[in-house]
């Protein structure tokens, strides 16, 4: 079975949770199902992606006919692609795009990531997807997150193959209800065309059904998972702070993640306890606001802002913490608590987080209930029993949540789409 996937991020270049999830889903499918072949289309691969799937760099796919000889093409394209691929794509250019801004290979450049002209890039991505869909052989299309929905829809219209879209987040989560109409229309259009909508949690599924008016029969909750930690990260020693305890927030410091509730809870804890410190890792648009808030509460000496953590630092941060807190206001899934649990750090998450649906060995509180949050933080820091229980049982629980299982669930939905004509008859 061949899958044509569209994604915006892929490791090792990580902008947010989407890259990790895309990697997990594809890797889990390849490991669990020997007959699965995945072609993954990225706007701008960096060339260091793992080779278990076939990567297509959309910035290497020609949309304007350029006549180059074999050797020149070979010298210009990266090594994960052959000149034959290039010629194959070139033979399937379906319209005259010479008015567009293309380079000497007839390809479009992508900035990658989330630049200012994101909407242009999304549009270009979809144009190129038309070429790819015409030149590739595949059984099903799978588009990750709203940026690639137009590409998925385009590929479906061209090829007639079923389209699965994967909802990693909706604009309702990102904007606390104040949706951007352009984004909403892109999302809605993608969902309307999809034969199957995979949501990362039941919470997201409900949003899709309620806010995007989708047929519940084609919406499914496919929860994310985590990969076992590599040895390098497992070897990071846990830090013992002696009498002091460290409580950590790690994530983008933005409205969606509820950082102000963390500060409020920290304030309550600091009033009663002298040996608990708070680590506020990450960056984001509310960074300075939070620094100010901590100062205004008079707890700036106990709240520390180490800034953005990348790669191994993230795990060092988890391992140096006694408690991890994710007070998200609206979190479609939220993979961070699972990672913290892998490092043996008990987590407190908001009830508004999708990952809470599959996690039992975490403390769940309402994000607005700062009293409950403070109480849970204090309890984890003072009661050995609770900490030990959540640490040990949490490790066991998170070890059971694997991408291979997720892959199997996705495969079932694929089969339904391919062989039985979808879910709505």
């Amino acid at each position, binding site marked *: 079975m061949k899958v044509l996937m569209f994604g915006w991020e892929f490791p090792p270049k990580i902008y947010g949770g989407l890259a990790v999830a895309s990697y997990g889903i594809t890797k889990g499918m390849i490991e669990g199902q020997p007959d699965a072949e995945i072609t993954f289309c990225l706007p701008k691969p960096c060339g260091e992606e793992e080779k278990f799937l076939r990567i297509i760099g959309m910035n290497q796919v020609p949309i304007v006919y350029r006549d180059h000889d074999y050797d020149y093409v070979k010298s210009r394209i990266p090594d994960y692609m052959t000149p034959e691929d290039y010629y194959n794509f070139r033979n399937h250019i379906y319209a005259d795009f010479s008015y567009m801004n293309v380079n000497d290979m007839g390809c479009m450049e992508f900035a990658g990531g989330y630049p200012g002209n994101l909407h242009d890039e999304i549009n270009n991505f979809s144009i190129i997807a038309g070429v790819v869909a015409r030149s590739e052989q595949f059984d099903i299309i799978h588009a990750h997150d709203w940026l690639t929905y137009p590409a998925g829809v385009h590929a479906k219209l061209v090829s007639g193959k079923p389209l699965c879209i994967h909802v990693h987040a909706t604009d309702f989560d990102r904007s606390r209800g104040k949706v951007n109409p352009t984004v909403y229309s892109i999302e809605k259009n993608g969902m309307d065309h999809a034969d199957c909508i995979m949501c990362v949690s039941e919470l997201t599924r409900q949003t899709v059904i309620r806010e995007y008016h989708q047929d519940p029969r084609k919406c499914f909750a496919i929860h994310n998972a985590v990969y076992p930690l590599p040895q390098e990260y497992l070897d990071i020693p846990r830090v013992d702070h002696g009498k002091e305890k460290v409580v950590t927030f790690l994530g983008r410091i933005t409205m969606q993640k509820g950082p102000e509730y963390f500060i409020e809870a920290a304030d*309550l804890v600091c*009033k*009663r306890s002298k040996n608990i410190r708070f680590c506020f890792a990450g960056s984001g648009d509310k960074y300075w606001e939070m620094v100010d808030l901590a100062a205004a509460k008079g707890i700036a000496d106990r709240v520390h802002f180490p800034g953005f953590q990348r790669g191994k630092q993230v795990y060092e941060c988890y391992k140096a913490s006694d408690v991890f807190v994710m007070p998200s206001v609206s979190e479609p899934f939220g993979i961070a608590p699972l990672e913290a649990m892998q490092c043996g750090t008990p987590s407190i998450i908001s009830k508004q987080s999708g990952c809470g649906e599959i996690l039992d060995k975490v*403390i*769940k509180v309402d994000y607005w209930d700062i*009293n*409950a949050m*403070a*109480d*849970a933080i*204090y*309890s984890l820091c*003072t*009661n*050995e*029993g*609770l900490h*030990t*229980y*959540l640490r*040990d*049982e949490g490790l066991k629980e998170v070890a059971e949540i694997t991408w291979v299982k997720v892959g199997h669930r996705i495969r079932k939905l694929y089969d339904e789409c391919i062989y039985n004509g979808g879910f709505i008859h």
Partner: protein
Amino acid sequence: MKKICLYFEIHQIIHLKRYRFFDIGRDHYYYDDYENERSINDIAERSYVPSLQTLIQMCKDNPEFKVAFSLSGVGLEQLELHAPQVIDLLKEINATGQVEFLCEPYSHGLASLANEESFSAEVKRMSDRIKELFGKRPKVFRNSSLIYNDDIGAQVAAMGFKGILTEGAKQVLGWKSPHYIYHCASDPRLKLLLRDIKLSEDITERFSRQDWSEYPLFADKWLDWIAATPEGEDVINIFGELVTFGIFHPLSSNILEFLKAIPFLAKERGIGFALPSELCEEKSVGAIEVPYNISWVDEERDTSCWLGNVMQREAFNKLYSVADRVRVCGDRRIQMDWDSLQASNNFRFMTTKPGYQYRGIYDSPYDAFTNYMNILGDFISRVNNLYGGADNEEIDGLITMIKNQQDEITAKDKEIERLRKKLEKYNPTELEEKPVKKAAAKKSAKKVADVKLEETPKPKKTRAKKAVPKAE
């Protein structure tokens, strides 16, 4: 003749309120008054009152019908406060003379697994309460949730009880039948009455379950099962909670009609009734060894629903770490709080076993644990404040000393008694004056020892006094 021994537990906990850690040291009142009043009234109205009225009527209509109850001290306090009509009904049923009240630990707690002295003090307190309320000192004991092992058996026997109720758990019975009288392996004086799990739970668990193959259960069918037990298996112990009627199974399931039909239909089949104390008079067929704890809870029939995970064990250990201090302090409020904190339900809210739904005001085991530990934190600091910050070793030393001296006094009392008897033998002429004096002296000494430890040992009085907190 086959005999049914019916026994019902009456126990409700005192619900703890939402207690945040900011309250530690500031707020020493731990109870959710509203929830307590609401729940006890609800239970009294829906269950206790109608079922007791039914049982009273049954006693009046059938002179051979007999039933036993036990009350927990904390449950009793709740009833006295919010639903005294239940106690009146209990007195009314007691007046029929076909009823027996058993003794259980006052707090419905797990002291039997933690601290011998606290356990026996609690049992004694409950026994006194029962005597005071119903006029008779209980002779048979049932531990909280029928928790039992050989050590508990020995201890209960030493307290003077004739029998104990416990679970007919498969893991201890093996091929044996619960339909006989057994005795405790470590003290043959103590008889064991074992619950018939299947027949009891047909009523307590399955009665109104429509997915049960035997649904609907009628009294004649149920009694036929009893009548069909093999010849010689004469004791059928049916133990349950009184809330079976009305709460576990709504009254609309006609469970009271089922109950009412039992005496008459039992008579038809030649089945009688017996009280636990009557059964304890009978001869035992053998000893049952119970090296590990058993109880009537869950499929495992052990203590895992209270002490199954590390959180529960931490809370348990922390609670009983101050057991000695609480026992010897004279502070009434502390001792009341101690009772309600001990209730086993508090630990059950923290269970992480799958399938357990009812958690009171808590939405997760972690929530229950956090709340309980906050309260416990405050409670323990109050207890320790009574001792003026003396360190543990010093206090433990003093407590041991007090205990030793108490033992010594008891031993000396016995010795005096013995010598006095001897004296009587040798010079019966001098009898008139001396023994009277001595007996009086002994009596007062004992009384002092029981009531207030600070006045006990004469020689080391000054040191002991330091250890004992001043009562409020």
